[in-house]
């Protein structure tokens, strides 16, 4: 049974069909890449599954259970988390506070009486050390470099106790060292049995990381298989390079 399965998912913006009856499924312990040209629907798929966009039609199964009208705040409870293509950190609070947002009480009354929590602090410390931001923990997120902010967003996602991780172009604009850190993180998540969904344009990275791959074009899945398999397909080459 897939950890996350999506059937006939559609989404329209104005007259444009951004997702056209998409069928995809993601397995525990696998890295699945979503590839395709710009505007093919990769980010729209993630935004719709994580309820940032309303779902028009189709069905989403989480752990085999059908979920109707998922709302954004329910994503974490369903064991899912994500990063954003355009980073959405909380800029005017510290690195540590950004991490705590993914760790502390969600209910407002409990949050009201929660001040410091040693286990949250320890967990945040472990992650920040892993991504090399522990020294910057008291800095406002807006003061970090582009790459550090990318890493913080990934760190924040790691702090969520999730089984499904969506990473939307996590390597974009990063140096080799930072790419290596993120690659290791994705492999570790896979080894721990999580389903990792990776949107990425760099085919070398996709080849090195992904177990399977969906190719999207104009809101449709045009190929599915291992990376090597799909990159041999004529319709995939055509989608990327044109006829």
């Amino acid at each position, binding site marked *: 049974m897939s950890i996350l399965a999506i059937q006939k998912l559609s989404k329209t913006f104005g007259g444009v069909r951004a997702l056209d009856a998409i069928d995809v499924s993601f397995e525990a312990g696998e890295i699945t890449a979503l590839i395709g040209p710009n505007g093919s629907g990769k980010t729209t798929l993630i935004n719709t599954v994580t309820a940032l966009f309303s779902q028009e039609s189709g069905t989403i199964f989480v752990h085999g259970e059908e979920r109707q009208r998922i709302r*954004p705040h329910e994503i974490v409870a369903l064991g899912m988390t994500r990063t954003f293509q355009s980073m959405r950190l909380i800029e005017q609070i510290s690195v540590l506070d950004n991490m705590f947002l993914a760790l502390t009480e969600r209910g407002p009354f409990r949050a009201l009486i929660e001040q410091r929590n040693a286990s949250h602090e320890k967990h945040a410390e472990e992650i920040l050390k892993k991504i090399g931001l522990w020294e910057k923990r008291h800095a406002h997120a807006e003061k970090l470099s582009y790459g550090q902010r990318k890493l913080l967003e990934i760190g924040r996602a790691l702090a969520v106790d999730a089984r499904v991780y969506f990473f939307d172009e996590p390597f974009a604009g990063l140096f080799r060292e930072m790419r290596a850190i993120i690659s290791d993180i994705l492999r570790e998540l896979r080894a721990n049995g999580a389903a990792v969904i990776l949107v990425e344009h760099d085919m070398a990275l996709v080849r090195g990381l992904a177990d399977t791959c969906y190719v999207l074009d104009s809101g449709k899945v045009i190929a599915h298989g291992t990376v090597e398999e799909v990159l041999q397909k004529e319709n995939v080459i055509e989608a990327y390079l044109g006829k």
Partner: protein
Amino acid sequence: MDYFIHVAILASIWGILALSLELVVGETGLVSLAHAAFFGIGAYATAILLKIGLNFFFAAPLAMAVVAAVALAIGLVLSRFKGDIYMLASLGFTSIVYSIFLNWQSVTNGPLGLPAIPRASLFGFSFSTIMSYFVLVIIMLALVYAFCRWLTRSSFGRVLHAIREDEEATSIFGYRTTHYKLLVFVIAAMLAALAGGLYASYISFIDPSSFMVAASIFVLATIILGGLGNVRGAILGAFILIMFPEALRFVGFPADIAAQSRQLVYGLVLILLMLFRPQGIWGTFRL
């Protein structure tokens, strides 16, 4: 001396009001103009309860409970909005409440207001002297300050800061942001009601003119001046905006244009301050 203490009492009451609005505007990023209404409902409710013989220390919490119920009902509507719409809807609420103060004669005595509101007392000690009332108000201000500081440093406060910047991204991390917006709105309204109760008991006469939209704008100006995102800034802003115009009385403007000159200088200083320090004196956040 009594005059200075009188001004300090008013500044402290406005300080409590400013602190409460800071929670909504400075910490959560929601520009609310509903505060004059909660200040007013708190003042009227406390005044009525004091006049029927209830002790202030029972009357004020009851008034706060009344305001909490009203804020909960209004907040259920407001917490669905953000930005300009939130501000306009809160403005509409204040206008409605003002109209009720003006026209619900049997309860509020309409434009004639409620006179002879008793002073607070505790275990037989009446805060009837201006100095004793000053001590009471300062203690209340310190308690409200400590509460606001504690709240903003809690996990709840962190979520408010996150909502202020990106409500959608905050919700993705499992937070029902409308619940947070609603709860902080209710807490702030209750504190505004406390300020209203202290005001009514001190001035001993209230009428609807004290609770117009202008009062909401004034308290908003105090927290912007003091600096949004900092609870100390709210108190500083309130003391400056209450005390500065009073201080101008001693500048020695010619008697026939003294009032106009004071208004002119007051307005000019505010404009200059916003030009050269738009984030306010202690601000960490700009709208």
